[in-house]
């Protein structure tokens, strides 16, 4: 009995040994993504199909995670069972992983593929300690989306300065329309407001120094930002109860003409159009000027792909990133995503909002990522909570700024 078993086992093992080299010729890449929404999912499927067509010996397996769940899942899979490629975000948002040695240094392909030229606008946000840690594939603009019909009905021109914007708000308020709407229950939409208030009041360099912890939150210049911001909040020009609303919950207000404007990222266009708005009723304008003479900087969050340090097939992963950085690949996926390609040789899809956004970003003096990507995570959380409180109770401003200053002292020390 046992002899038979042993022989068959030996045969099996020999068989396995024989077949192993054959299997190894078909190499595999595991790619974990947070592309759970239809458009990003389609974009990555397209990207992978094109890559496989160009490299028939590599098979890419995509693991799609829920967009929100991914943010916690990545910490587990990077250490426990690393894929060969993983989605993430640029700026300070990737710093914890870089510092913990979880992302692979890919400066070599940045050099060999000339990415410093083609992906120039994102190079700074991909660089830590003089090395590059990932490849950006898409970004999008932030700005003010508005209901054109309401503007026409109430005789409001698109404002270019903060005074004009506030004056327009007074008109809308008189007509019992929310001048601007948002939903801050997930906190980050409020950070968009702070970014723009601070970028327009104090400029890009100050904003970056603040998010890097080099300037106290109790600084007079920060107070000036909040004083300007209060001009919007104190008279009630912002949707009441925004703290109970998700950003999607606030969209119907814009669609139904109960709110005139919405400060948001370009990803809001798709759902607004689904809800019935068209290029005739939905418009876009850059955030108005506050302090005259401050060079215009914009929020333009960049999404990226990285190679985990524990990846099994780093060679093909590098090939994949190089492919993804190419002008053609970025043109193709961003046409599906309806976002902007980072590669400056790529073409921007013929969509009025993207064309306008592209124009706005390419003439901007500098691009910020977003508050929660520019500031370290803990500061981002404390800050966004403070912004939400300020947007509900502007009179608490002193207490909020002191709390943020305490947090800064602890977080950056």
């Amino acid at each position, binding site marked *: 009995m046992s002899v038979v078993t042993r022989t068959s086992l030996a045969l099996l093992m020999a068989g396995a040994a024989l077949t192993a080299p054959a299997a190894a010729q078909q190499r595999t890449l595991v790619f974990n993504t947070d592309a759970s929404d239809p458009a990003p999912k389609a974009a990555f499927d397209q990207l992978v199909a094109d890559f496989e067509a160009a490299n028939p010996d590599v098979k890419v397996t995509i693991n799609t995670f829920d967009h929100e769940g991914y943010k916690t899942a990545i910490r587990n899979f990077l250490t426990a069972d690393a894929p060969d490629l993983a989605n993430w975000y640029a700026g300070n948002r990737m710093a914890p992983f870089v510092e913990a040695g979880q992302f692979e240094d890919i400066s070599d392909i940045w050099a060999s593929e000339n990415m410093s030229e083609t992906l120039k606008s994102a190079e700074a946000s991909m660089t830590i300690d003089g090395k590059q840690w990932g490849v950006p594939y898409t970004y999008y603009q932030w700005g003010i989306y508005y209901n054109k019909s309401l503007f026409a009905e109430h005789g409001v021109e698109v404002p270019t300065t903060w005074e004009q914007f506030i004056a327009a708000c007074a008109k809308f308020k008189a007509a019992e329309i929310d001048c601007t709407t948002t939903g801050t229950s997930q906190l980050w939409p409020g950070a968009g407001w702070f970014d723009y208030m601070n970028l327009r009041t104090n400029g890009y360099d100050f904003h970056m120094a603040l998010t890097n912890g080099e300037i106290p939150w109790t600084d007079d210049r920060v107070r000036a930002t909040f004083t300007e911001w209060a001009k919007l909040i104190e008279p009630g020009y912002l949707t009441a109860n925004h*703290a109970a609303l998700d950003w999607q919950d606030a969209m119907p207000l814009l669609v139904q003409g109960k709110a005139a404007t919405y400060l948001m990222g370009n990803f809001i266009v798709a759902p607004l159009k689904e809800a019935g708005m068209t290029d005739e009723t939905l418009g876009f304008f850059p955030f108005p000027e506050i302090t005259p003479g401050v060079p215009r900087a914009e929020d333009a969050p960049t999404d990226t792909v990285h190679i985990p340090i524990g990846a099994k097939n780093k060679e093909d992963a590098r090939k994949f990133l190089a492919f993804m950085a190419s002008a053609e690949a970025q043109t193709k996926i961003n046409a599906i995503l309806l976002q902007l390609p980072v590669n400056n040789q790529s073409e921007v899809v013929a969509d009025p909002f993207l064309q306008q956004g592209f124009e706005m970003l390419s003439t901007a003096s500098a691009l910020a990522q977003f508050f929660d990507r520019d500031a370290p995570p803990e500061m981002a959380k404390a800050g966004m909570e403070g912004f939400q409180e300020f947007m509900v109770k502007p009179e608490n401003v002193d207490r909020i700024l002191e709390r943020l200053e305490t947090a800064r002292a602890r977080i950056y020390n």
Partner: protein
Amino acid sequence: MAPRTDAPRRSWWRQNQQRVAPWLFLAPGILMFTVYVLWPIVDSLWLSFFDWDGLGTREWVGTANYAELFDDDAFYTSLKNNVIWLVLYMLAPPAGLAIAIFLNQNVTGIRIYKSLFFFPFVISQVVVGLMFSWFYAPNFGLFYNLIEWLTGTGVAVLADERFVTYGIIVAGLWPQIAYCMILYLTGLNNIAPEQVEAARLDGARGWRMLWHVILPQLRPATFIAVVVTVIGALRSFDLVSIMTNGGPYGTSRVLSFYMYEQALSEYGYRMGYGAAIAAVLFAIMMIFISGFIWKMVRDEREGY
């Protein structure tokens, strides 16, 4: 394979069988309990003395996490909310008892009514949370519109720091009352009819009947109802997470949610600080748990 003779070992087994057997039966349980309960507790407590982001190296900080905790406004907000939860959750056992007594009658279709009342406990807490968020939602929520119709201005309960915790507790009480009701309904089934009959002959009725005859017989049900309610109040995490995410600006946090936020949420990853919060929550729970255990042991000795 012929069985080997192993006389000394067999006789050791025979000698010590009585002493060893209980431990053998307990072994799987002890092993599981140690691996999945005791070890994690000790490890969490140990972790609370470190600064660790879950990826890099752990750094020993001594009691710094606790020092920071006792100087943290958010911690006191969470603690205060936990106390409010505990106090208001204690409404669940009496409310459950009232409904149970109301439903404890023989009418056609009483089973349907009973199951309808029990329904909120069957559906998931997440669904309860979502339903109540819509109920409170500004502009289209039923409650919001009702208040607007009554007073002229709507109140967005979940965006108002004055009401938000109470709003969530009401959502939590709904299934908790159903749970207590079912405990009391089974308790009422076991009431000795002779005692009720005897009491009736002695002229007891109404409150006196309830207080002196029914309630003493419901003591086991009351005990369980209070225990599950206390635990339910202290571990209130899901509703806070679903309905408000701790907001607006952190005013509806409870300790368990704050721990999750600090240790595991998107902007958290302060494992040590989260562990310190967990240690405090554990200490609070231990007060109740040891009280319950002490009572159970005493009851068992007295032979209830």
